[in-house]
């Protein structure tokens, strides 16, 4: 059965990580997901806007929620940070009806209205909860057997757990591992998987930011990882695009491909790598693809 979502791609998949956008759209075909893009929606604020103006963040996110509700579909995002901010705003608006009424008064200018209760899910949660691991397993055309993959969650899809639906879905902190196993790969269990990639302070304290990224990559690589996989494009930026810089700062000999979650799923589902722009990463994915001989970039 086709699953329909109001699709929020986030700023990064439309900017510095176009491969994520393409991979998501491509994999959605294989998974029978119908994605209706929220092209009128704004940035969530990523927690940065909220430092200066949380109220503006609330109004803009409520507007996005209302746009999704107007479409009558749950909202799907492809970014841990978007998920965290959207969940946070949703929590605040649900707990404060008077405040929500004020927000809705602003949205009324556009004929929009947000009623608490919208389902907001990162692609990772959609995979496990809506599609189901059994279905994914049945769709795997090229099991990633022998591939060792380290999960990298991104903070905001994990914490604070009080607002991320853990009561209803207590395993959400293990989904990446479950998905890695479902596509036939082996999970690399390392300490950094649930820590911070450092991206938010890249422009503020470059050394610290790159040390964080470099240390996690190094730890996973040391434990034999062939790649890391992440549902967060901001983590991807620090782990992939900044990896050469992180190598220089930490002096660790690191060279580890970083996959966006939809890319890993796509590889297992038989999508050709170039259709997911696996050749457009800063850290080459060739070594990784060579381990899957039939799937090398054509």
């Amino acid at each position, binding site marked *: 059965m086709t699953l329909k979502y109001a699709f929020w791609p986030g700023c990064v998949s439309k900017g510095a990580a*176009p491969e994520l956008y393409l991979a998501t759209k491509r994999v959605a075909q294989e998974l029978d997901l119908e994605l209706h893009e929220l092209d009128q929606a704004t940035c969530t604020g990523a927690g940065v806007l909220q430092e200066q103006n949380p109220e503006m963040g609330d109004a*803009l996110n409520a507007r996005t929620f209302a746009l999704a509700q107007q479409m009558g579909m749950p909202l799907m995002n492809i970014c841990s940070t978007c998920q965290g901010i959207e969940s946070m705003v949703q929590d605040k608006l649900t707990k404060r009806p008077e405040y929500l009424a004020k927000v809705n008064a*602003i949205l009324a200018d556009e004929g929009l209205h947000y009623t608490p209760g919208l389902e907001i899910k990162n692609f990772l949660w959609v995979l496990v909860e809506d599609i189901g691991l059994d279905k994914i397993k049945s769709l795997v055309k090229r099991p990633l057997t022998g591939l060792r993959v380290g999960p990298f969650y991104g903070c905001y899809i994990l914490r604070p757990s009080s607002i991320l639906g853990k009561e209803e879905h207590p395993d959400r902190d293990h989904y990446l591992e479950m998905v890695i196993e479902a596509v036939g790969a082996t999970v690399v269990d390392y300490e950094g998987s649930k820590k*911070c990639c450092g991206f938010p302070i890249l422009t503020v304290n470059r050394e610290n930011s790159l040390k964080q990224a470099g240390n996690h990559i190094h730890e996973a690589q040391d434990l034999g990882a062939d790649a890391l996989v992440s549902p967060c494009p901001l983590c991807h930026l620090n782990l992939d695009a900044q990896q050469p810089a992180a190598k220089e700062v930490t002096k660790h000999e690191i060279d580890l491909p970083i996959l966006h979650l939809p890319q890993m799923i796509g590889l297992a589902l038989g999508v050709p790598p170039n259709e997911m722009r696996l050749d457009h990463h800063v850290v080459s994915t060739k070594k990784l693809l060579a381990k899957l001989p039939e799937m090398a970039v054509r």
Partner: protein
Amino acid sequence: MKVKLKVKRSNPETGDSSYSKYEIETENSVTLLDALIQVREYEDGTLALRCSCRSAICGSCSMRVDGRARLACRAKVIALTRDNPEHEIVVEPMGNMPVIKDLVNDMESFWSKMRQVDPYIKPEGPTPEAEFRVPNEAMIDLTHVMNCIMCGACVSDCTVLEVDKNFIAPAALAKAYRATADPRDDHEHDRLEKLSEYGGIWDCTRCNMCVEVCPKGVAPMNRIMQLREMALEAGIKGNAGARHTGIFTKSIEDGGRLNEIWMVPGSVGMFNVPRMMKEMPGALKMLRAGKLPIGQVIPPGFPGSHKMHGMDRVRNVVRKSASLKPVKAEVKAHDA
């Protein structure tokens, strides 16, 4: 019930560390602290741990339990083994602070950072005859941070402190908020200036780890975010963190979505040549990989900058959202 423990042991004399395993019989209702005390009393008298009140008030028994810092007296063993009764509970000392022995940390760095933020309310002007009176509503926002019991859990698991010992870290920054936001304090501006320096509020990655591990709902990171908001309101903007927030906000107000290209120059400063040079190799690599969004090359606010569809409607929301701001009455302490 049967409880399996795997406890990290560190010997201060030899510098060695290893894990000791214990298996004990206890009541179902015991806390991890009860179990550890039972081990120390009946199984292995050499095990060192720190505790006092046993009821989550004194903050002495913080340690890492299955990888995350928490109070041992607040962790029920039955809850720790709920998913798997055979689960071996891994108990380790807190992170980010040296270990004196086994589960006992040296908290000196914790206290020195507390002292560093000058955690006292410092009023100016004449001392009141009786007492300072503040209205209740001025104190509500401070109640969570007043709950801090100085257990060190947030410091233990802080992901920034792991890479930079200079970071003031969550506990002391939350305490700094407590003093800065108190209506009886008269040093808000100086404090915010100092806190905006290297190692202060802008070095936090907002990873939420401290919010997650704090046993008392202090949510230190949220307090750090409030300090950032206060610093910006006070006009303390001469640092990369404040500039980053500024360019980010401007980018959304201008185009509805993030202009990624201008984040770096907008934060570090366009004419900060040495710093910009550091970014060049990375930028070139991204350009080669087709990852530089060249459509965003015009800076936010300039004619022709990149804008999403329907920006007029977004601008309306942006403008009107100012009405959502809570009205902050000027609350000052007054002589009783």
